[in-house]
Each structure stands twice: as C-alpha cells, then as structure tokens.
C-alpha cells in the first residue's frame, strides 16, 4: 500500500495539534524506509495466521492453528525441530537456524476467517494494518484463499495459502504475492484416474454430484476430463446447492440412471452428508451393468471423513498428505505434532506447517522480509524432506508440484485416526500440467508488490 509520506510541514502541524494535549511529543513516522510494507521493527517479526475458527471448518482451522504454533516453536528454536531437521532446499540443508527468522523472534497474530471472504479479508486487513503482519497464511476454502490472496497482493505482503484446492487459486486468480503448497483439482484428478481405471476398469459410466460453486465446478471438470481420457463415460453431472444438508433427492435417481460409479465433488459437511446419503440408499450393495456400484470422493479430508463414520470404508479419493506416510520427514512431523497435541496432524495442518517453514527459509535465503525478495527465493525452489518427496514451487504460477496420494477408506481401522490408507503415491510427472493449460488459463501473476 502506498502511504502518503508525511511532509515535514504536515508533521509539524499535526504535532502542534496533538501537542496541545501532550507535552513534548516525540514525533516519528511509522513507516521505516525499508522499502516494503510492515518491515519488522525491533527484535521480532509478526506473522498472521488467518484460519476459520467458527463455522463448519472450525476444527480444520483449529488444527491449522496447532500446526502454526508448532512451526513458530520450531523456528524459534523450541521443541524437537520437526521437519526443520529433514527439510532440504535446492539440494542442500535449509537455511533455518532455530533463532527465529533472520535473527528476529517469530511472533504471530490469529484471526477468524469464518469461511467468508469478507470476514477473512477484514481479519487479514487488521493483521496487516494493526499488527504489522508481514505474511498472511491459512484458510480452509478456495473462496477465502482467493479473496485473501488478492488482498495481500494489493497490500504488499506475502500470502502462503492454506487448504485451497480449486484450480483457480493458481489458475485464473493467481497472484505474484501468493503461493500455494496444497495440490489442486487437476492434480487430484490426474492422480486418481489411473487408480480408478486399475480398480474399476475402463468401461465405466460415472454420475457426478457437484457442489454448485467455483471449486465444485473446477473439481468436476478436472475429474471428468481425466476419467474420460481413461475411457469412462460421464452420464450426468448434477449441481447441488451449497446449502443442501439432505442429499437424498440427488442420490435417489442415481441407481436408475444407468451409471455404475458415483463421483461426489463435495467437500466438508457437504461431502459427509452426500456420502452418508449415498451409502444409506444402498448404492454400494448394488450391481449395475454387471459391475459393483462404486463411489468416489475426489478430495478427502480425514477430519471430515470422521463425520461420515463407517461410510468411508473402501472409498477412493486423493489427499495432499497423510500422517501414516513412512518417510523421515513425515515421521518427524507426526512425532513432534503428536507429542505436543496427542493426536496426529491433518493434511491441513501439514500444509500450513510446511508453508510457514518455506516462508521462513525463503526469508533467510533472501536475507530480507521484502515480499519481492521472498517471492524470488520461492520461485523455482526445489525442496525435499517435507513429507511429499521432491517438490518444486513453479515460478510461472506459484503452485507446488509434488507427488499426490491416492487413498482409500480403511476397512479395519485400528484407531479413530486410522481412517485412510494410502494406496498409491502418484509421481509428480503424472500430475504436472503446462502453466497455460486451459483449466488454468486466463490469469495473470502480475508483479510482486512490496507495498511501499
């Protein structure tokens, strides 16, 4: 944000005005001349954690917040260091020293997005304007992520997206100041389609139920394209209103539609309810076209899947990360998170933790908190040891490219956290796409904005 630099005269006048009440005020201008917005003053740097604390995603938000607090603890040298010990950037060890970022102790402010773009922007603005946050991160839906990303671009701070799965976040709504570690609809579809083909065969007829808003559409478009490429036929795509709680009316006609697979392009509460309805209607016990009827949930959230209870058993989907992964990085993260909080982290927690470390590392390598410096350090960054294997932050659209997990609802869970099992780790090459892919076209990264 450009600030009017107070002229000398303006300051004197204002001082005289206020001086009437307070004897000998010291007059300073708040903005240092660091050349970017909210340059940290003194010995601390403030990060803004903007997560849903009320509304349907409050639990996911709470888990994100736990991850952020853990990340801050690790950055400041506390705890066991978690993934700081495994994280490698551009082939060498990361630049994090455990003394904060650039020697400044990390502090944070939190806010409630309420999963509404207005509230999320208000909250982010207060972090930027009032608390001097130099980076905003978090969120649990694409609408919010895109809204806050736009705000951060205008305000001149970095946005490290939390859980956002829509193609648009790094597609038509991408911004130079915004970065996404989480995967997206296209990648889900690309990872899922081969597994579905392998499990259910080439000759399938799919019926889609799709949440009637932007994320749902991009998700459906991606998965339909990917499965059709494998020989599936999309029988029908039915849009369901966001406010639907009882999906029976949408599920009831499925069985007699000639389809033998139901794809639920829903997330969160919608997913829980539509899946529950589908199972209640006995779809999974039926045979159509001589094949077992199957249900697919392209985007899984373990936290939410718990709400569907036993209904998730045997159902395929994709996820960004899962705590049962056995690589060193994931194990280290699960250990420090689990020790601190008593349960394993969710994928939302993972992506938020990773984003924070990535930001900190970028600041260290760039030697500044200036968003343009950080963007430069993040663009094209090759890193590993963060639980997803070798990963790249692509410079063209600020999207991370990494392996994608295909998971299945576990048949015999051993604990309340053990709901999903990883059936395949789809390699990165398979989910990659060109920056100008039609599903992502139309956007413009623009120029990085340091805000001053």
């Amino acid at each position, binding site marked *: 944000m450009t600030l009017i630099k107070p002229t000398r005269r303006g300051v004197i006048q204002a001082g005289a005005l206020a001086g009437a009440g307070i004897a000998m005020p010291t007059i300073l201008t708040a903005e240092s001349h660091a050349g970017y917005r909210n340059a940290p003053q003194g010995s601390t740097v403030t990060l803004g954690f903007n997560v849903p604390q009320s509304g349907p995603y409050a639990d996911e938000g709470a888990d994100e917040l736990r991850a952020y607090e853990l990340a801050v603890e690790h950055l400041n040298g506390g705890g066991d260091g978690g993934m700081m010990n495994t994280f490698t950037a551009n082939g060498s060890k990361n630049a994090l020293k455990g003394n904060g970022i650039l020697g400044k102790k990390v502090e944070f402010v939190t806010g409630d997005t309420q999963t509404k773009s207005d509230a999320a922007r208000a909250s982010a603005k207060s972090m930027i304007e009032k608390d001097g946050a130099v980076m905003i991160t978090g969120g649990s839906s694409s609408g919010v992520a895109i809204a806050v990303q736009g705000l951060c671009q205008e305000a001149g701070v970095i946005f490290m997206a939390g859980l956002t799965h829509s193609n648009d976040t790094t597609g038509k709504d991408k911004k130079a100041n915004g970065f996404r570690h989480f995967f997206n609809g296209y990648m889900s579809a690309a990872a899922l389609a081969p597994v579905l083909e392998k499990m259910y065969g080439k000759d399938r007829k799919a019926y889609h139920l799709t949440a009637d808003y932007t994320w749902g559409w991009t998700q459906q478009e991606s998965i339909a394209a990917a499965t059709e490429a494998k020989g599936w036929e999309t029988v029908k795509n039915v849009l369901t209103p966001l406010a639907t709680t009882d999906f*029976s009316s949408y599920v009831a006609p499925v069985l007699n539609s000639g389809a033998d697979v139901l794809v639920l392009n829903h997330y969160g509460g919608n997913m829980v309810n539509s899946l529950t309805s589908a199972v209640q209607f006995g779809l999974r016990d039926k045979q159509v076209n001589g094949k077992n009827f199957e249900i697919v949930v392209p985007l899984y959230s373990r936290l939410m899947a718990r709400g569907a209870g036993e209904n998730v058993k045997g159902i395929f989907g994709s996820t960004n990360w899962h705590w049962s992964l056995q690589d060193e990085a994931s194990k280290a993260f699960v250990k420090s998170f689990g020790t601190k909080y008593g349960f394993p982290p969710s994928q939302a927690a993972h992506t938020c933790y990773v984003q924070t470390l990535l930001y900190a590392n970028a600041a260290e390598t760039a030697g500044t908190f200036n968003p343009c410096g950080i963007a430069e350090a993040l663009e094209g960054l090759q890193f590993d040891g963060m639980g997803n294997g070798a990963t790249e932050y692509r410079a063209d659209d600020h999207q991370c490219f990494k392996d994608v997990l295909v998971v299945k609802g576990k048949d015999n869970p051993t604990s309340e956290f053990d709901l999903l099992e990883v059936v395949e780790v789809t390699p990165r090459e398979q989910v990659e796409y060109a920056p100008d892919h039609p599903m992502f076209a139309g956007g413009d990264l623009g120029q990085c904005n340091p805000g001053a």
Partner: protein
Amino acid sequence: MDAILLQILNGLDKGSAYALIALGLTLIFGTLGVVNFAHGALFMIGAFCAVTLQKILTISSVSIDPEKKDFLGNPMEVKTPYVESIFGEATGQLIINWSVPLAILFAIPVMLAVGYIMERGLIKHFYKRPHADQILVTFGLAIVIQEIVKHYYGANPIPTPAPDALRGSFDFGVLLGFDPNAVIYPLWRLVYFAFSALVIGAVFAFLQFTTFGMVVRAGMADRETVGLLGINIDRRFTLTFGIAAAVAGLAGVMYTPINSPNYHMGMDFLVLSFVVVVVGGMGSLPGAVLAGFLLGILESFAAMNEVKSFFEAIYLPSIDQIIIYLVAIIVLLTRPRGLMGRRGVMEE
C-alpha cells in the same frame, strides 16, 4: 413413475423434519406469542442427546496392549466400554448399537427440562416485550448454546449410526408392484417418517382430547380471556413450551443417523423452519404440518433432473436453489396469511 415415487418418499422424509420443528415453533408462537430463534438450537440439543448417550455408553476402561502400536509407535491403549464389561460383550454391543433409539428415552426428560428452564428462566420475562427483543434474546441464546456444544463436541460432524438392523435399504417398490430395484429406500428414513407421523399424531391427539389441550387451544385463540377464567394458564404454557422443546428434540434425536449432527445444524434449519411456519400460517398447527410436507416434497421434486431442465428452458436455472423461497413468496402473495393462518396473528 418410480422416480416420482422416490422423490415423494424423499419429500415426506424431509417434510417430517420440517414439520416437527415447525410444529413446536408455531405452538410457541400461538400460545406464548414468542418468536423463538432458539428453536433450531433445541433441535440441535436433541441430536446431541443421541451423541451424548452414545458417548456415555462407550465410556471405557483403558488397558494397554503392548502388541499394538499407536501412531507415535507407543503401546496402544485398548478401550473396553463398561457396558460391555457389565452386560457381557454381545449385549453390551447391542445396547451401543441401539443407542439412537434408546436416546429417545433419554432425550424426553432432558428436553422437557431444557424447555422448562428456558421458559421459566428467560422466555417468561419476554411475553410482553416486543418481538424484536424476543428475536434478539433468543438469537443470543441460540449462539450461546451452539458455542457450548461446539466447545464440548468440536465443529466436525459426529457419526451416530442407526442400529445395524435398521441400517440397510428396503425395496419399497416391490410392495407397490414395481420392478425390483426400482424404488429402493433406506430403512431408517422410513422409520423416521413413521416416527414423525406418530409424534405429530400424538401432539394433535393430546391437544384435541385432553383438558390440558383444550385450555392450550383456547389460549391460542384468546389468551386474555382464558386468563380471566382463573385457569393457571402460565403453568400450562410452561408445559407447552416443554412439549415444543421435546418435539424438536425428538426430531433431532432421530435425525442423527440421516445426517451426522454438528453444532450448527440448528442454524441451518432455523430459517427454513420459519419459512415453513409462515407458509403454513402463523399459529396454525395443521398449517405447519401441511407446509412442512409440501415444502419437503416440492424441494425434492425441484432436485429432479427433468424438473431442473424444464425450468432451465424457461430461464429459471437452478430451481432447486430457490424453490423453497419461491414457493414461500407465491403462497404469501396469493394467501395473505399463509395456507391456514388466522387473521391478526403476528401481522403487526
């Protein structure tokens, strides 16, 4: 034809939830003249009665099983519900399995108590206050209840399945001479519909055939006159509030296997139930029931692909998004007081 039958069943099912909530709401309007924005919260409390009972029944003794490992690699805790150790494993599991129907017994006293406390503690003081004040105070109460539930149970939905015996689906069509597999309907949803019909019937019978019911009906017609007759109307109104709360609560208990309950389910139903009550006509019990089923069925029809494409052809895409409100507008414009409303109730 089978598709239509399926949607009628769906509609009746949704309608029963709407009707049960609206029934209590309109009872409170009619007898007490109170706009109760906390009524959705009562529905939610009912649902969480089922969750709570499930939790109580699964309170467990904890032992360590060194063979199994938890997610951190430590020996795993194995939990055995006390119910199983007391009644034996088979009986114990059966009891836990049937926790939702059992929760009805648990919910009735709880809901009556909640209703009693709410009415005596709060609502009572708002009889003579403007509706706007009533809205504000009950809305505040709804938020408070919601936040308390969120604090104890979290924000995510909690699965509360139906008993195994009632979990499957049922080939309803065969009974009516359709081909097998044409009209398959979940058993529990049929149970829900039957249960609602029973509760609605019980409420009407109660109001129709008991002296108490007569006084309540008289009170709905003319509160002041009944008061003058020397009947202790206040005590009866307290009980009325309790009944309304219990009906909403029961609707909530039985709803849990259909959709896993979460802390904001009450708010989700609140607006809808007001629309139902108003479409039915303020202060009319049959109106509330009629409107509940009507809107449920219309909502189900609007979700049908054929209907959606028909409306799309006449430039009304996504009719299922707006059907409830569209119907409400049409009904209110053609029938000034809803389907069966009485003149002068809540018209100022």
